[in-house]
């Protein structure tokens, strides 16, 4: 059990390097995520934010450095293995099972989590169904529960994508611009609900975000990305008031 004073180290990246041709996507990234943190990643487009998430989840293999999760080396492990260890991901462009209903998307995730592989049991008959319905309720997707995923409006797709990640009961949730695509009037409501859900489920998170208001409200720490490097990290109120950060990232 982790002590209140010294939170447990969950995710640790050290010396991550990755170049695509001439583009530097990661150039010595060091970053740690502790239990209970909600870390926001900010920075201009092309700074390598998404690349960082891709490396952490094994989608890309770094040319140097390593990633650890709960003191376990996971560098370039297949995404499915990393997911099973407890790192879930939500995407900038929602990744849904387009042919199936939102509920079925959830049930499939739950089946994987619980390893329900009996080929004779109906997907809808798994015991986690109730739980998944509640989760959809929580993220505000109950109304589209039985709609085919490909038919959803963008905002709902985004939420469904996050719900799928949550369905996996992760320790850490990586989110790439979680509220982009959600109507701006709803953004804060959605994020509020989402963060409450994360807190309730004791899930730590990393989220890439462009909205500084959002960052200052929900992040416990901020990391500023620039050209494949972390420019600075710290508490939101400190970092967001750093003149250099304002000039490079926020002011723009």
């Amino acid at each position, binding site marked *: 059990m982790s002590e209140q004073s010294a939170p447990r180290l969950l995710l640790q990246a050290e010396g991550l390097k990755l170049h695509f041709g001439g583009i530097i996507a990661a150039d010595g990234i060091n970053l740690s995520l502790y239990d209970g943190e909600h870390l926001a990643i900010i920075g201009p487009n092309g700074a390598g934010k998404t690349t960082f998430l*891709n490396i952490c989840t094994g989608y890309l293999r770094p040319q140097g450095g390593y990633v650890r999760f709960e003191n376990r080396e996971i560098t370039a492990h297949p995404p499915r293995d990393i997911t099973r260890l407890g790192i879930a991901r939500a*995407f900038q462009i929602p990744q849904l099972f387009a042919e199936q209903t939102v509920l079925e998307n959830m049930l499939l995730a739950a089946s994987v989590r619980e390893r329900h592989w009996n080929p004779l049991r109906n997907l809808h008959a798994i015991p986690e169904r109730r739980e998944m319905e509640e989760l959809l309720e929580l993220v505000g997707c109950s109304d589209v529960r039985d709609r085919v995923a490909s038919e959803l409006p963008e905002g709902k797709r985004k939420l469904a994508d996050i719900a799928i990640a949550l369905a996996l009961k992760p320790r850490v949730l990586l989110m790439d611009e979680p509220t982009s695509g959600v109507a701006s009037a709803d953004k804060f409501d959605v994020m509020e609900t989402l963060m409450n859900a994360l807190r309730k489920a004791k899930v730590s998170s990393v989220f890439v975000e462009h909205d500084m208001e959002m960052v200052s409200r929900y992040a416990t720490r901020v990391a500023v990305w620039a050209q494949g490097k972390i420019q600075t990290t710290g508490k939101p109120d400190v970092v967001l008031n750093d003149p250099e950060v304002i000039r490079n990232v926020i002011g723009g």
Partner: protein
Amino acid sequence: MTLNFAVLALLDGIAYASLLFLVAVGLTLIFGVLGILNIAHGSLYAIGAYVAATLGQWLVANGYNPWLTFPALFAGATIVGIVLGGLLERLLLQRIYAKDEILQLLVTFAVFMILENLQRMIWGVQPYFMSTPLNLLGNVSFFGINYTAYQVLFLPAAAIVVLFALRHFLRHTSMGAQILAVTEDREAATSIGINATRVYFMTFVIGACFAALGGALATPTTSLVTGMGANMIVLSFAVAATAGLGQIEGAAISALMIGIARAFAVYLSPELEVIMPYLIMVLVLLIKPNGLFGKVTARKI
């Protein structure tokens, strides 16, 4: 002896590879541009052969100069390519470009079945011969072994001419440049105003002409029977897939590989002859899923 024998196998292989290339290059060109793997290509090959044979036989039977059978081979192929290929593209393929690739494949399979059937209705089920061009050119000798000049000189020459003409066409003409542009990036090409409809049509007709030409040029070396299209299409799949779908020069190299491997098998272990093309295809695809010269594309998330 071993060297001689290797040279002999090589000659046989090259003769065979020339025909394979002619058919496969059309297939791979069409795939490169239209993204359709055209199973009916095999039927175009067979019909090209039948039309060329019919024309040739008619010329000979009516007492025309037998050398006219040479232009008849090319004329037959061109007619089949333009008429049948053009009709197919205009009437059918145009309707399916937006469809899933599986459905496209099946449509071409359906066309294949239809054409196989029509072929039997038109030319019957008994074998056809027309070896006049082969007889006219006579034999040439290597190491005391007679080869028909048609097979070891004319066919490879035809294949080489086709290869270079095609390269020239693609690199140095406006239509060719448009075709290449569409092959590289369909969306970008159409966005800069290239008329994709026209490009598709031209490409398909050219590809169909090559298939028919392969059949026409094969005519003098073989007897035409039903089912020849089915055998040829799967062989040219093997050539095209081994090279990497859409690779034109690659198709020439893999046709040579397969042709020569097959010829060596006849000398060393005849039982392996039939298996060679597919064995090569399996091995290459297992190691390089996109073929020897194919490009790998990664998905961005």
